[in-house]
């Protein structure tokens, strides 16, 4: 089985308490985790660190998640990076927009436990 250590994640989430707990959990089980508190920072970290998967919040200051996703898809590196949208914004329009731009999943935070998010991430890596 491939080790989690080989995988790099980026958490783009403006709410600190949610970001910390995700980071703690994901780094505890061995992922390498980068964090960003808004879309601009998220885009910069992504372009620099080239994560294997991005957990992307939608409602964020400076640059929202959908804009960050679009910018990523416009860049050479970001065309194919795995993106899981993890948000509390539950709107059909946003879901289809995210999916159009290649988000692999659209998860509502309040409906998903951390364990199930971890399972989803592992599934994406075929673990």
């Amino acid at each position: 089985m491939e080790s989690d250590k080989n995988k790099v994640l980026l958490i783009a989430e403006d709410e600190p308490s949610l970001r910390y707990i995700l980071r703690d959990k994901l780094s505890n089980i061995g992922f390498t985790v980068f964090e960003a508190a808004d879309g601009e920072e998220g885009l910069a970290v992504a372009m620099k660190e080239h994560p294997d998967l991005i957990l992307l919040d939608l409602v964020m200051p400076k640059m929202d998640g959908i804009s960050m996703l679009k910018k990523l898809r416009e860049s050479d590196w970001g065309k194919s990076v795995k993106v899981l949208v993890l948000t509390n914004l539950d709107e059909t329009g946003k879901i289809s927009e995210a999916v159009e731009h290649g988000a692999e999943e659209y998860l509502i935070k309040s409906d998903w436990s951390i364990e199930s998010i971890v399972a989803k991430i592992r599934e994406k890596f075929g673990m």
Partner: protein
Amino acid sequence: MDGRKQEAVLTSRKLVADGAYEVSFELSESIQFAPGQYAWVILPELAHPDRRGNRRSFSIISTPSDAKNIRFLFRVHSPNSGYKKTLLELPLGSRAQIDAPFGLHTLPNATTIIMVAGGVGISSFLSIIRDMEERGAWRQLTLIFGNSSQKSAPFLDELRMYAKNRPIFELREVEGSISKEHLPVGTTPKDTRWLLAGPKEMTNKVAAVLTAADIDPGRVLCEEFPPPALDKGLPVIDEQTMSDSNFYKLAVENASNHVIFTDIEGTIVYCNKAAEHITGYTFEEMRGSTPRLWGGLMDKNFYEHLWRIIKRERKPYSGKIKNRRKNGEVYTVIARISPVLGRDGDLIGFLGTEEDITDLEKIDQAKTEFVSLASHQLRSPLSVINWYTEMLLGEGVGGLNEKQKRYLSEVKNGSRRMTELVKDLLNVSRLELGTLVIEPRPVSLPALIAEAVQEQAPDLHKKNIKLNESYAPQVSTFPADPKFLKIIVQNLLSNAVKYTQDGGEVSVRTELADGKMVLSVSDTGYGIPEDQQRKIFTKLFRARNVVKKDTEGSGIGLYLVKSIVERSGGSIWFTSKEGAGTTFFVAFPAEGMRAQRDDIM
């Protein structure tokens, strides 16, 4: 307390003071009333015309100890109403109807009560005073009884006798009109209750004195008689004068709702001021056109349906319609369109009334948007609680003792309930805003139901409820939006489990009947009380019998289920018997749930 109409016979009539008569009626059945209540006396026909009609209300002056014979007091002014004249001349033994009792005039729970009566206003208090005497249950009471100097006061001897024998009851007789010096304001306890009854002139004057003395109006109860002037000299308006004058035309012209008349083809022949104001077109601009001038925004089927109802079936139509004003603004109305028939029964035209509800809808929309926004905002702190309790309960952060685990599980459970509630609220607001999107695709019914059953497994097990399942193979795959079908099944199933006693049974079945997929969920639970059944799909409604047993329900589930079912082309109904159980049925056409797009304009 509601009144009940019954037959009565006039048994006596006595003059008890100048121009004041006491009448007695014997009832066909005894009535239950409280001292201080009143009755309507309906005379079968009036020997003298009276534009106020053949019914009057009177205080009952007898006591509940004789529930078959009740007495009233009235004074005859001259010239007088046709009603009272008729009552005065009515032969003993005549029939009348009594509608009683009405009004609740029980004595307030105060240390001191002051009754202020003018003339026959005493009738409001006689029953109360007589009842206290009969039962020997006197309370601290002062009666200030005013009587105009030209007339003798009714029942004064009786009241004087009570006052002489019962020191707790004080009678103050006032010759002429009652004024400030007769009223013990300032010397009475703060919680004193004032009961006033008499001619309007007197009650107004007394009330003004009490207000000036800073007495809380909430402590003053007032019953006034209209001045006798009402019975004479004023211009008369009755149905005849209303139809002779342009009364009805005035009413239509000045109504705040849009009113138009059209011929059979829909050509406008009349409109009122509001119609001009609401549509923005003047009558001159409308004349010769049809309401298409501002309408025509609904789809073709709608107008075909409308014409079929009003023209072919000749029935009134009512419903919500979108229109466009002359300035281009779209507005929403509740329209009612009725066929107008001529003397020979032929259709001659249509009457259309419309109420502009655009502003009301905006307010409603703002409210719903607020709920939607608030629900979204609630999700972040809920996620914080959910994830941190999950981590604390999980491995790797140091062990908790059993008690700590149990406490934390309760936090998690509460947060889960809140998460579900927020989700329901969001779905309700989507339904109300019309932003709910329903996308049917083939779904395995047994698998989807199994997921919902799985969620109920802990409760099924805890309450030892037996679950019966039966799925028709013809509809094992069914075109539905899994997200919403799941909400339907979850709600019906969790209700069935929640409202069934330990050891009961819950059954889920699907079948194909009359070209429809019917899903039913039945239980052997508490059932829905019959008088509450028609409210069961109302938002925030919870049945009386379950509110006592369970505090978890929000009153949103069934409202949401019904809205989803109807929005997606299905129907929902139920059968229920209190104490025996309930079955909910949901039916969709065999072709599946109907797709619904975001229909916000």
